[in-house]
């Protein structure tokens, strides 16, 4: 094709520039993939060593109630921590879920416009407060308060305090997803309901919320995911005792709090250290579970 070679310098130049651009952006994306693969690989290889190399049984780790890694006959039952993580994040979602949905309804249905102008910045500020500050406030304000509520029979540490602190921290996550979903709802849907003589609440309850259920659940699951992985704020208020949480005001632990406290007090390569990596692997595993749950919900949303 002798026609197609305008051998001007522009030709070479734009080819060269596009090569640079492509190489650069592709490398960046490759970097992201390398990072994620190495995180999973390294954490998994350490976390699995507990079971493959140190011979701890997976059943004991998952279901054992006895955590005594340094005893004469060490036992590595992580159930108290696994349960602690689940209980504390579920409770947090239980508190934050209704609160967030109300906040989203307030911004979009009850006082649209003005409500959003007040509440939106408040929610953004809440999400901006660092987690150690939440932990510190929990420790110095919430714990004494809870303790006084129990009449001094408890110091105040426990899953109750943990859940309360976490609920405030995940409130922005759930609220913003719920508010986005509410705003995306076509106007006609509400108007059709009003036209039938339904009150605002009936419209919200019978039309708006059921339609948006998948999105609201998405928000709640992402909230739980965030609570599940949160480390320092929880660690500061939960008490850190290695027991199954049986009361809201009894000292307990989560996976993250145990990792936080023990990682630098154990020697790399020992079973005491490896089992902490198993917990980290558990956190990774749960991240994937939450993401799959969200994806399934989104698929339902499209139908």
């Amino acid at each position, binding site marked *: *094709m002798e026609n197609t070679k305008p051998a001007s310098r522009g030709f070479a130049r734009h080819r060269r520039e596009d090569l640079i651009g492509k190489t650069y952006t592709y490398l960046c994306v490759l970097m992201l993939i390398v990072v994620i693969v190495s995180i999973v690989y390294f954490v998994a290889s350490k976390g699995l060593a507990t079971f493959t190399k140190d011979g701890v049984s997976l059943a004991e780790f998952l279901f054992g109630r006895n955590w005594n890694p340094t005893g004469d006959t060490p036992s590595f039952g992580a159930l108290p921590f696994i349960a602690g993580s689940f209980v504390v994040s579920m409770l947090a979602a239980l508190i934050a879920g209704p609160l967030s949905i109300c906040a989203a309804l307030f911004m979009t249905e009850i006082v649209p416009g003005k409500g959003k102008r007040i509440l939106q910045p408040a929610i953004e500020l809440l999400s901006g407060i660092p987690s150690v500050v939440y932990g510190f406030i929990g420790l110095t304000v919430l714990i004494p308060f809870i303790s006084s509520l129990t009449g001094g029979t408890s110091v105040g540490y426990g899953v109750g305090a943990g859940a309360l602190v976490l609920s405030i921290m995940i409130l922005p996550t759930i609220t913003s997803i719920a508010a986005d979903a509410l705003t995306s709802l076509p106007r006609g849907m509400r108007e059709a309901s009003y036209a039938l003589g339904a009150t605002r609440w009936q419209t919200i309850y019978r039309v708006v919320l059921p339609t948006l259920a998948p999105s609201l659940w998405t928000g709640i699951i992402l909230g739980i995911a965030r609570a599940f992985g949160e480390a320092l704020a929880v660690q500061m208020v939960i008490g850190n005792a290695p027991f199954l949480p049986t009361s809201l005001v009894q000292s307990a632990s989560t996976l993250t709090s145990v990792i936080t406290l023990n990682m630098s007090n154990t020697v790399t390569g020992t079973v005491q250290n490896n089992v902490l990596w198993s917990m980290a692997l558990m956190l990774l595993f749960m991240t994937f579970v939450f993401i799959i749950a969200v994806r399934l919900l989104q698929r339902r949303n499209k139908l």
Partner: protein
Amino acid sequence: MQTSTQPRFGTEELSVFYGTNEAVKKINMEFPEKSVTALIGPSGCGKSTFLRSLNRMNDEIASARVAGRIWMDGQDLNDKNTDAVTLRQKIGMVWQRPNPFYKSIYENIAFGPRYHGTRGKKQLDEIVEQSLRRAALWDEVKDRLKESALSLSGGQQQRLCIARALSVSPQILLLDEPASALDPVSTGKVEELIIELKKDLRIVIVTHNMQQAARVSDSTAYFYLGNLIEHDDTTKLFSNPSNQMTQEYIMGRFG
């Protein structure tokens, strides 16, 4: 590989597909030198898609596929070996809504030529003045060349976009409803400009406005559902169309 039916600038069996949907169907058209060709037809008839495929704008749309040939001086622009980036320089384009770069008025014009190798300040100044003059904008902006292009009015912005297209000395100018977002006065200016510019250029214009097509174009093509129904001299097509569908559209029975 040249065939005798090959036009200087035009299309041969040009089709555009979005997925499996054939939005433009095997169009054969020639755009004569120093003349304005208007593309008319109801919304969704494929006229804009056709226009955008002439300078391979559709390359950027993943789902779009263009088949057939686009001839320009013996070169098939739709050939996969043809370098789209280089050819676009020879084909200027102006869009429905003014889209000046977020840069100064001067930079909007100088950017293209500088990229293509004109470096001297004097030459660039000259290109900027020439292009703005040809777009009938020079007198309005000559004292504020360093100001942001977005400080201009909509009509001025559109003429700036025409000047920008002219800055790289194209041989063809594609106009996609260039006046539909403008007020009547600005529209008038743009139309005058089109008639002036055709002295050196081939111009292809998509328009919804029948009167506009009648005022500025030498020949007019009527598109319907991706087909080219009729292409003829503008006066002939508007006064005495040979196709019944064209007549119905022009009489205002359609959209």
